């Protein structure tokens, strides 16, 4: 035992200290939870929720119209400003876009999710899951950029359509709708796939045994059972559309959406107004999450 230089007693002492600590912690489960959760929650509250609170606070301050400096006098003016027609128009336009994108994603995602979940062999299914995951993670900016190339005047879309004598939508709301659908589609496919995979085959067989046609089975059996998963996917498509400011800037720069309106007010600088405006998409998403939870979407995530 020449290799051990440390006297046995010392090893035993070190070990017994650790052991005592371990036993002490085992006897105090609360202390253990505090030690495990303390750091993550402290960081979360200090950095994230603390920041949201500071932002919220700023919504109640005033801004000196000449200097742009913030005057720390309480006011509700910024919230009253949310009632101005421009802001209401922009909010409605953004929500309409989010709804349109969500519905389009749902329609496009359904066939591929169904194929993945119920038709493909396990091998193909695994490959398809990876194939859907990759574009979800591939650079967000480059995906936007690729559509700038596609939609541009001498881009590939007009090139492909020119033999037919027609033109693509170019940059605008239609183009934006296509690009948003492209960006968030994988977020809809994956939860929908998981939801469809969970439907017991016996239910679908029973439906057809009882004489239901394909369409009836789809409407009366598959769609209701996949609905929570559809809602789960819609959380992503809806909230990502609502909170984006880069895509509207790049694809439909003429039209304002809630994200770039907030950004431009922040840049004025009019932080109090931007802060008040920021709580509109926040509130919409929280309401959406609450509705989604009632519809059972969280069990489907």
């Amino acid at each position, binding site marked *: 035992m020449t290799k051990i230089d440390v006297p046995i007693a010392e090893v035993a002492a070190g070990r017994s200290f650790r052991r005592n600590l371990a*036993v002490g*912690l085992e006897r105090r*489960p609360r202390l*253990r*939870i505090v030690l*495990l959760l303390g*750091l*993550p*929650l402290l*960081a*979360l509250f200090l*950095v*994230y929720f603390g*920041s949201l609170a*500071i*932002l919220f606070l700023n919504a109640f301050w005033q801004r000196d119209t000449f200097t742009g400096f913030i005057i720390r006098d309480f006011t509700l003016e910024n919230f009253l400003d949310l009632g101005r027609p421009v802001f209401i128009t922009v909010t409605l336009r953004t929500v309409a876009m989010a709804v349109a994108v969500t519905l389009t994603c749902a329609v*496009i995602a359904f*066939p*591929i999710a*169904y*194929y*993945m979940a*119920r*038709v493909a062999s396990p091998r193909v299914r695994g490959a*398809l*899951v*990876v194939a859907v*995951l*990759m*574009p979800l*993670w*591939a*650079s*967000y*900016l*480059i995906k936007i*950029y*690729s559509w700038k*190339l*596609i939609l541009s005047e001498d*881009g*590939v879309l007009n*090139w492909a359509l020119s033999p037919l004598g027609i033109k693509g939508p170019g940059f605008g709301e239609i183009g934006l709708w296509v690009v948003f659908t*492209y960006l968030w*589609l*994988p*977020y809809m496919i*994956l*939860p929908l796939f*998981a939801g469809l995979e969970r439907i017991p085959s016996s239910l679908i067989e029973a439906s057809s045994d009882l004489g239901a046609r*394909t369409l009836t089975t789809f409407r009366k059996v598959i769609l209701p059972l996949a609905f929570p998963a559809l809602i789960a996917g819609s959380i992503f498509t809806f909230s990502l559309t609502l909170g*984006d*400011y*880069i895509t509207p800037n790049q694809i439909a720069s003429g039209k304002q959406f809630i*994200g770039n309106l907030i950004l431009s007010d*922040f840049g004025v600088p009019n932080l109090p107004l931007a*802060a008040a405006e*920021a*709580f509109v998409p*926040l509130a919409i998403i929280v309401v959406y999450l609450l509705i989604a939870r009632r519809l059972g979407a969280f069990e489907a995530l």
Partner: protein
Amino acid sequence: MKSGRVGRLGLLLATVAVLLFMYLPLSMVIAYAFNRSGTQVWPPTGFTLQWVSDALANRGLRDAFTASVEAALGATAIAIVLGSLAALAVSRHRFFGRDTVSFLIVLPISLPGVVTGMALSTTFATTDLPLGLVAIVVAHATFCVVLVYNNVLARMRRISSTLEEASGDLGADSFQTFRFVTFPQMRTAILAGALLAFALSFDEVIVTFFVAGGVKTLPVWILESFRLANQVALVNVAGLAAILLSVIPVYLATRLTSDSSTIGRT
């Protein structure tokens, strides 16, 4: 559904169409990165490695790449520690408000990025903390934690606690049990979560834009280059790098975990 042959064929065609829809735009950027003309006119005129070597020689682009890697490594390191701790607490203990913890950890990634970015930038300004690389790391860490947390939590729910109990019954203290029984089982889940955290941070721009100060990460560099006509050829190459550096970690993550549901972003 009575998946008749026609139905299956229709589904297969729809699947192929969606895959094409997802992959054609991305592959076009890759094609442009090697396009001889260096402009964005379709179709490409020929193959060249000119833009790749130009990009490698470009100082600003190299610095941006380095800044992105540094930010992503920093955010990932924090996410590993905080995410694993929280997942251990939630998976192996019962306490009041346990379900709320998951909800709180998911929030930073689900709320609009423009709000998160503005909130963090306001906080840094109010507290006189400097914007820059450290600010980016802190900002990214807030929403990268959830990726490690979700992966580790999913793993901990799948592995039975009987092994840990057996370890305790055989006389191991809780540190030994963690080191020799629990940790080896959660290791690949931590790694998978870390890879996803890296990919998310490397790609992030919406929040980064608010806290970057003068620091240019790769996405910030790309966003600014959208406005500069003389850099289009470089943007394609930068885009190729951005795609690879987010897609490769994710691919590795899928190999490490059989549970695909945790690789979605929340």
